């Protein structure tokens, strides 16, 4: 892509490809060129990346609000996470032009109505075990700060509560409480992904939990916390 022309070219290509339809107007609204954005555009790293290629536009917070209004969906709705996943978005609350357009293409969306219809399909994807796992694991990288290796505890808790509302895990509240009491630090990717395995495979009496297995240390501590505080009575064997 050539410099000055890059932004325009993409736009043009896009137009040519999709023809002249109403979404055009919306795209213009959603995409706020960097020089005009009143909102902070993420981390230093992101800024630098943007500086390197100033013609990659981003949809950021404002744009996302608008997007959600048009889709008739709450920005906090978990379906937006699924959307982000389809778009392979790198970070929450941001879509790069590439991500967004690539996502729309792969979903076969070319009208707002189709986008809205797709939402219910996307919601159903959460019911599928394998999909849910993929989306769950994706959300770690998506929710964390760019350039950080671990996920801030507050954010993690928020995500867990969101995700486990869809796939019900009875111990999620205890888990969050435990973390705030005993851990109070960021969550590693390994712990994040292993937690889902834990929730899926270990029964609520913790009878099939093996402390000597490869579970992360934090989960070992959680099990201890549950038994010590009498929240779960583990059968003695």
């Amino acid at each position: 892509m050539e410099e000055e022309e890059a932004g325009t070219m993409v736009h043009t290509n896009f137009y040519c490809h999709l023809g002249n339809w109403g979404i055009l107007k919306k795209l213009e609204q959603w995409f706020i060129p960097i020089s005009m954005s009143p909102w902070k555009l993420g981390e230093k790293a992101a800024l630098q990346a943007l500086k390197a290629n100033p013609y990659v536009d981003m949809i950021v917070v404002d744009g996302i609000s608008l997007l959600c209004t048009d889709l008739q969906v709450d920005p906090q709705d978990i379906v937006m996470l699924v959307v982000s996943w389809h778009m392979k978005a790198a970070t929450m609350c941001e879509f790069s032009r590439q991500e967004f357009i690539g996502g729309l293409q792969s979903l076969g969306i070319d009208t707002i109505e189709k986008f809205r219809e797709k939402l219910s399909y996307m919601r159903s994807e959460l019911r599928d075990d394998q999909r849910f796992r993929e989306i769950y694991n994706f959300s770690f990288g998506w929710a964390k700060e760019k350039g950080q290796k671990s996920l801030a505890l507050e954010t993690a808790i928020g995500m867990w509560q969101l995700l486990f509302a869809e796939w019900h895990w009875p111990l999620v509240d205890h888990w969050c409480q435990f973390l705030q009491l005993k851990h109070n630090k960021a969550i590693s990717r390994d712990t994040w992904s292993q937690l889902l395995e834990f929730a899926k495979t270990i029964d609520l009496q913790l009878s099939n939990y093996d402390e000597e297995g490869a579970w992360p240390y934090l989960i070992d501590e959680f099990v201890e916390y549950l038994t010590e505080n009498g929240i779960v009575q583990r059968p003695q064997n």
Partner: protein
Amino acid sequence: MKRKRAVPKPILFGEGWEVIEQGVTKMKRILEGLPEPPFTSEEYMKIYTRIHDMCIQRSPHDTTEKLYTKYKEVIMEYITSVVLPSLKDKHDEFLLRELVIRWSNHKIMSKWLSRFFSYLSRFFIKRNSLPSLDEVAFTCFRDQVYKETKGKVKDAAISLIDQERCGEQIDRGLLKNVIEIFVEIGTGKMDYYKNDFEEEMLKETTAYYSRKASNWILIESFPDYMLKVEECLRREKDRVVHYLHATSEPKLIEQVRHEVLCVYSSQLLENEKSGCCVLIQEHKVDDLSRMYKLFSKIDDGLCRISQIYKKHVTVEGTTLVKKADDVASNKEAEKRVVVGLQEQTFVREVIELHDKNMPLVNDCFQNHTLFRKVLKEAFEIFLNKTVAGSSTAELLVNYCDNILKKGGSEKHSDEAIEQILEKAVNLLGYIYDKDLFVEFYRKKLARRLLFDKSANEDHERSILTKLKQQNGTHFTSKLEGMVTDMTLARETQADFKDYLQCNPRTNPGIDLSVTVLTTGFWPSYRSSDFHLPFEMTKCIQAFTEFYPTKTNSRKLTWIYSLGTCNITAKFELQTIELIVTTYQAAVLLLFNDSNRLSYSEIMSQLNLADDDVVRLLQSLCCLKYKILNKEPNTNSISSDDVFAFNSKFTNKMRRIRIPLPIVDEKKKILEVVDKDRKYVVDACLIRIMKSRKVLNHQQLITECVEQLKVFKPDLKLIKKRIEDLINREYLERDSENLNLYRYLA
């Protein structure tokens, strides 16, 4: 005239038999002990020939078969008319005697008869596959005599054995002969012996010893009971030698052992008054050796003893731990001397416990691996507890320090010291936190070396050698580096002296000796922004200029907190040389210029932290020697105090060392060790994964634990480090099998 060949007249059976009959009668008479001369060769030949001739006759006169039948009849007749009646009404020993005679006679009869009739064996018997003459004779006796009498004979024999067991004298020769009959009657197989005699004999033996043992167990002590066991086993073996068949020995001994030992083994071992535990406690070596020998022959015997032994040693060791704990909690923390003494006592007592137990394991328990193992396990159990708030690694270091330093509380000969150090190093073998030992040892060694408190350099090197032998070169590399530094320092000092002579301008006018420490070897010391007294700055300058002439590209960092100073103090009545630390000297030198100084003035002049200043001032005016006076004259330092030189100080010595109490750096040392362990575990995990590429969780943990010799890793620590390595992308979890790790190059 025709010549007729003379055809011998056929011998008719009845006629022929007469001769044979004579022979048989003669033989019977001999057997009965009647006066009868023995057979001559002619008589034998006559009978043999007669039979021979009768056999070769042509039919209808060949009477071979009839002779064969007659042979058996003769024997049967003799048995029924003579042998059986003679046995019929006899019992016990009389029966046995008679049977022995009859069997012996029968063998003789069989021998003679078969000689007479031996022609039958050549062709007739073979051709017709008939039982041989011997077999026939034998079978007759067995089926007629043996089968009839075997029951009574067996009872009689067993009853004799019992009598002997009860202490009576019996005719062993007779018994031996009788039992041999049981053996011989089997012609090579032991079936008759086993079924008709041995089985019942063993039963009877079992019953006998069962009764005896049930008696003994009530009245005998464990050692005495064992003596009885030994005795009866010996007697039974003797019995086998003298009259039982050798094959009976293992079965017999096992039965006896079972009845007297196995059945009661738990009761015996656990006897409160005289059982295994008591014997160990009272160090009864003979009884323990006996016990070992006896119980090594029964299933599980040694295993159980070893468990009792292990428990005993563990309890003794744990008692020592508790004793030390109690002393520490009773005394106030200030009486560190007493606590220190208790620590010394603890280590010494543990060594003594070990010394006491080695002969038990080596001699009584014949150095059996099982016992070596449980001794090790027992020591590991109690030596890895905290004692009086400290780890045993630290206590062991203090113990060694006491032996190796000048003025330690124990006085020993060189040889004795060698032995003690050897034993101390042995104890380290049981302690898991060996890296903690090294760290504490380093600290103590540093003090000994730097403050010239080491009593004997040979001993210092000797213990390092022993530690190296036990734990590898890497274990002692830093310590050896420290000792080497001291040697190098002496050389450097000599060179420095030369340099000063050659460069008199640089000479500071004060005797300066510098020890250069290689950073990695020595414990890390805090550096501070201490204000060096101006009297000393020229010294430092001189050395700083000299050192690069010796080696280049080395950075010198001065640790004044470790220095010593000999300072002359002019008191009113005397001049005394004070041996103090550099910091203490700095405080004193301030009083060259001022008569009185406040706490804060001192602190700002020296530029040291509060805790250092307090310690320093305490050492100079609140402890043994009052070099400074303090207002108010309390026993503790406060920031409002004012200090003055105590010109009135006197002492009968011309030279005094003013000690500065050391700060307890235990916490810092534990932190250092913890931090090091993380690196060690990381390195170990990476090493394993690099070579194995893929490994499951359990195996990784197991291998890691195996490879780490210098401390026993906490499983939680290893798990945490694995997670950290995952985070740092050295490892990853396999996507299919979450228990599997993969190395990421």
